[in-house]
């Protein structure tokens, strides 16, 4: 118990230290979080009328973000599989960072669902035995179950691993490996269940296509890893953590395959709808070319298509994949492309035209966007804090002090260019701050 408390205390001190940039970043995120919280208070006060959702389009920006982020969360598995199934060392060293991204993304998912609820005060109705979770009938109940399982699973793996490294112990493989292997089907399950949530509705032909779950998985394997590549490049440049080129290259290559499958599946769906030309074509038309003069999504979806296709080419051609600039460009394009396609591009056409073929054109309000920005800031804040602890631990810059009680922090800057580090020479400061405790030698 005492050890856990000491570790926790150490992480608090650690996260409070950093370069000027780190401080600006964290304070900026906190400010956005406050904006989000204030917006949420307004929404709680006035009701969801402050959004542009209405009976015709009953899910909007919040659920779109949720859907996209489930994909990001599932992406950790793309690192876990090569690392632990194929035992490939370069990725094994960084797989943990993927798990941390999964944790942050799931937290954002849960927040997005919560702000979408009309009665968040009745949240407890979802808790099994206390309330009534309609399991296994409702796919939303399944989603609650798998998302929370996945969150707990990833948190357990990450915390257990880091805690042991901090105390300079070898993490117990017999405990870790089964959990890691279990996280593979768990990642697939969160995405499959979320796809089925839409898929199972006969009322909405746009979603009622069996290709939906595979498409979800394919696009998830693009967006999450693309974000990870960007994070890896930043970490490599601004922290002391080493990440091998071949690891990043391998991920980029896997993204290219996943994007190909994603584009292929999308093409299959477009063919089926347009060639058959039933009245179920309407939502697809609304999305791609506009329907009866309503075309709010059209410029967005074509942007997404162009982004995704360009990125696919960039990641396919070895030269552009290896070039840092095009690699960054490709990753950004994919992240934005999939965000549009798997977010609003997937959710809104399910409702437009609505079941009685009325067209209500939905565009999120400023309130919805401010709240969404607040949640994104929260997710990035969580991710930053997790990285702030994890990276020094994995570098050996943050561990228990020699007395076994206090802690040692070897990296006070965290986010700083390598060149500046050398100039400042801030590296080897010994700071066992906690005082030796009498009762602690166990």
């Amino acid at each position: 118990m005492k050890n856990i408390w000491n570790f926790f205390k150490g992480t608090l001190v650690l996260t409070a230290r950093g370069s000027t940039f780190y401080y600006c970043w964290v304070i900026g995120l906190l400010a956005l979080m406050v904006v989000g919280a204030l917006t949420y208070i307004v929404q709680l006060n006035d009701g969801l009328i402050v959004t542009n959702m209405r009976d015709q389009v009953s899910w909007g920006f919040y659920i779109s973000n949720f859907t996209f982020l489930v994909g990001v969360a599932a992406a950790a598995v793309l690192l876990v599989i090569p690392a632990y199934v194929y035992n490939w060392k370069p990725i094994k060293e960084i797989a943990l960072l993927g798990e941390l991204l999964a944790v942050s993304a799931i937290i954002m998912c849960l927040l997005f669902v919560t702000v979408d609820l009309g009665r968040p005060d009745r949240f407890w109705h979802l808790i099994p035995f206390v309330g009534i979770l309609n399991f296994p009938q409702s796919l939303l109940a399944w989603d609650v179950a798998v998302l929370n399982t996945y969150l707990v699973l990833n948190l357990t793996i990450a915390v257990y691993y880091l805690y042991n490294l901090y105390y300079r112990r070898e993490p117990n493989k017999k405990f870790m490996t089964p959990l890691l292997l279990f996280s593979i089907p768990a990642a697939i399950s969160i995405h499959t269940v979320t796809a089925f949530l839409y898929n199972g509705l006969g009322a909405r032909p746009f979603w009622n296509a069996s290709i939906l779950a595979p498409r979800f998985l394919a696009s998830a394997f693009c967006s999450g890893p693309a974000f990870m590549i960007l994070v890896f490049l930043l970490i490599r440049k601004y922290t002391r953590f080493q990440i091998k080129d071949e690891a990043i290259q391998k991920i980029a290559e896997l993204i290219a395959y996943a994007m190909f499958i994603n584009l292929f599946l999308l093409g299959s769906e477009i063919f089926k709808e347009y060639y058959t030309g039933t009245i179920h074509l309407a939502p697809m038309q609304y999305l791609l070319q506009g329907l009866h003069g309503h075309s709010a999504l059209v410029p967005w979806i074509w942007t997404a298509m162009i982004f995704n296709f360009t990125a696919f080419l960039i990641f396919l051609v070895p030269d552009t994949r290896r070039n840092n600039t095009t690699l960054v460009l490709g990753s950004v394009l994919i992240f934005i492309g999939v965000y549009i396609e798997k977010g609003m591009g997937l959710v809104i056409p399910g409702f437009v035209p609505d079941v009685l073929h009325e067209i209500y054109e939905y565009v999120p309000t400023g309130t919805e966007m401010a709240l969404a920005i607040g949640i994104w800031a929260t997710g990035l804040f969580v991710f930053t804090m997790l990285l702030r602890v994890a990276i020094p631990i994995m570098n050996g810059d943050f561990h228990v002090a020699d007395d076994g009680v206090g802690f040692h922090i070897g990296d006070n800057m965290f986010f700083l260019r390598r060149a500046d580090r050398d100039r400042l020479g801030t590296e080897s400061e010994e700071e066992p701050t906690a005082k030796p405790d009498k009762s602690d030698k166990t």
Partner: protein
Amino acid sequence: MSNKSKCDKHAFQKSRRKVLKGLAAGVGALALPSPNASASVWEAFFQKNFRELDRNELQQVLARLESEYSKEYGKEVTVKATLPIEGVKYGYGLDLSRCIGCRRCVYGCVEENNQSREPQIHWIRVLQLDKEKGVALEYAEHYYNPEEVPKEGHFYMPVQCQQCENPPCTKVCPVQATWQENDGIVVVDYNWCIGCRYCMAACPYGARHFNWTKGQLPKEEMNPETHYLGNRPRPTGVVEKCTFCIQRTREQPGRYPACEEICPVGARKFGNLLDPKGEIRYLIENKRVFILKEDLNTQPKFYYFYAT
């Protein structure tokens, strides 16, 4: 650091603390009942799902709601929880050859069922269709507004909850806040619904409506004869829908739903599907009948027919 800047820093900290405190209080007050809220607020907060209430608890809940509504609307409000009648399954018939699209049913329903007047919530949507194109929803006009109805060359199709025998909406509810009763009526427990709106995505008929904000219901227009699962005033953030006027139809002797009663041309028929001699059975067996979106296998108990 100079004295002044120190002072300013304190002031900033204080104001920041105030903001945070206000924030916490705000979130607390809005999301959860405040600690000194009246006992009934807490009772409402911890209230069980309707189907799990025993007789005593149900009586308490109904009494609490009655006093709450009576106070709010300044009149004696009753909240019943009349059970389904044994051997009854309700069915609805709608004669498309008679309907003139006057929308009296829409507003009759609003008056009877205490829907919000602002923003307006309608449980019935009347579609104006082209006679040449037939029942083709994609050509339906929702907001028709001619001088006179019926408009030349058009016919009208009111759509409301179809009370499906195989309802896709109840299945998806993550907390079992909506279900089908033994008499076939699909109901919502407004005190258990969490407002996720999954049922709205699942309904193929647009029959479910959400309280996006606190609905306006003028005191003098409020109908004080209510049913727990039907027309009692709805809280913000929950889903509501047509219940075949459960507060009327479950009475003995029963009354017709408000929309049936108000229809000036007799296009609406209502009755017990299990009564072999009933009018609704006669219509189903002898007229040209169809149900909406038959291919979805929702098995509506709302039958459209052409009497002439």
